[in-house]
């Protein structure tokens, strides 16, 4: 099946794949050829693209959605997509510490915009570290 990952800075990945695992809003989504037509919201997390005859590709994905059509076309539209080559693990670690500190400083109201923003920073930093460690 054909997988395409579109971001604001261009098409990040386009090619054949045996399957995709994407971070759905409510849990992991596994997409294989022949999947029924689907639209799913995504959250920050790791997306794994199984490229034939190569190591599976680990990518950081930010908020977005995945659209499956005809059982063979998968389009992921996301605000951010990074491979391990794009990630500076040292920067990600600093971001992680900053976000953790900021989150523990906000104790009372966890529904605020600020809290959500810091939580998102933390998720993104942790996902980056995971992908950086996978190196594939």
């Amino acid at each position, binding site marked *: 099946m054909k997988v395409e990952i*579109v*971001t*604001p*800075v*261009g*098409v990040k990945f386009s090619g054949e794949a045996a399957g995709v695992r994407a971070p*759905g*809003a*409510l849990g992991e*989504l596994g997409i294989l050829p022949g999947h*029924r*037509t*689907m*639209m*799913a*919201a*995504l959250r920050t997390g790791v997306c794994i693209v199984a490229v034939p005859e190569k190591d599976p590709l680990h990518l950081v994905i930010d*908020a*977005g*959605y995945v*659209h499956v*059509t005809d059982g063979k076309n998968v*389009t992921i*539209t996301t*605000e*951010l997509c990074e491979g391990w080559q794009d990630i500076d693990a040292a920067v990600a670690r600093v971001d992680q510490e900053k976000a953790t500190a900021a989150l523990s400083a906000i104790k009372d109201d966890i529904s605020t*915009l600020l809290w959500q*923003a810091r939580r998102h920073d933390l998720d993104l930093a942790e996902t980056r570290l995971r992908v950086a460690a996978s190196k594939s």
Partner: protein
Amino acid sequence: MPSLKNIRRRIASVKSTRQITRAMKLVAAAKLRRAQERLVQLRPYAARIAQMIAELASGTDATAHPLLAQRPPKRTLLLLLTSDRGLAGAFNSNVNKAALNWILEHKDQRDHIELRVVGKKGRDFFKARKFEIGHVYTDVLNQVTLERATGIGREVVAAYVDGNFDEVYVVCNVFKSAIAQNARIDRLLPLTPEDHDHNASTLDDTLFEPTKKHVLDAILPMDIHVQLYRYLLESVASEMGARMTSMDAATKNANDLMSRLTLQYNRARQSIITTELTEITSGAEALKG
């Protein structure tokens, strides 16, 4: 007539000014190209989101989602995009005037119009006119990133969803060419999906994961972010285009001024030589006699 030394000094100063304006023009040209490249890269992504929203919205009740629901416009947020630096022709005054006119025109029909400003130039313009400014974002246009646009977008969406505003407008420059930038006022919220033929929908048999509302919740803010990002990039392109043109004009003016000063310098020098020659010949004549 100014002395030779004075003219020489002026020529040197005009020359160094020309060097600066020429460098600014080249830098602006490079930044303009980069902004345009990013606009091109953004296109497929923006188009995909716009199309998806059109399809999703055509099948749902428009009032189903707060970002789509039309409310009577009582409280308005005006987001003005300007730059931090001047020397860019009419770039900033274009949008400042457009925003001012819009406010004066609409303030009688609204209970409240809040102004939020990106860039120091817009802030200074409205501060000088004693307007109240809700929030100022600086250092945005010199380093436009999607993250920055997303940050501003989140704040705007949150204020809108909380009911602080019934509509959000953006006042910005739209890039036409290096010599033409148009001020434009666009409504950002509530979103107006593009018209879509419902029969052509590809979503009839679609499974929504987890629900259609979740998917809309995910996509609509993405659209706001991408639109803001596009407006910011358009503004950068316009700013750089305007700066390029005005710095080009400044370089030309410096050239004109230099050739005029050089002419003046040569004339002054010639007249000194002529005077000296006359003095020498008349002295020689006097000795002969």
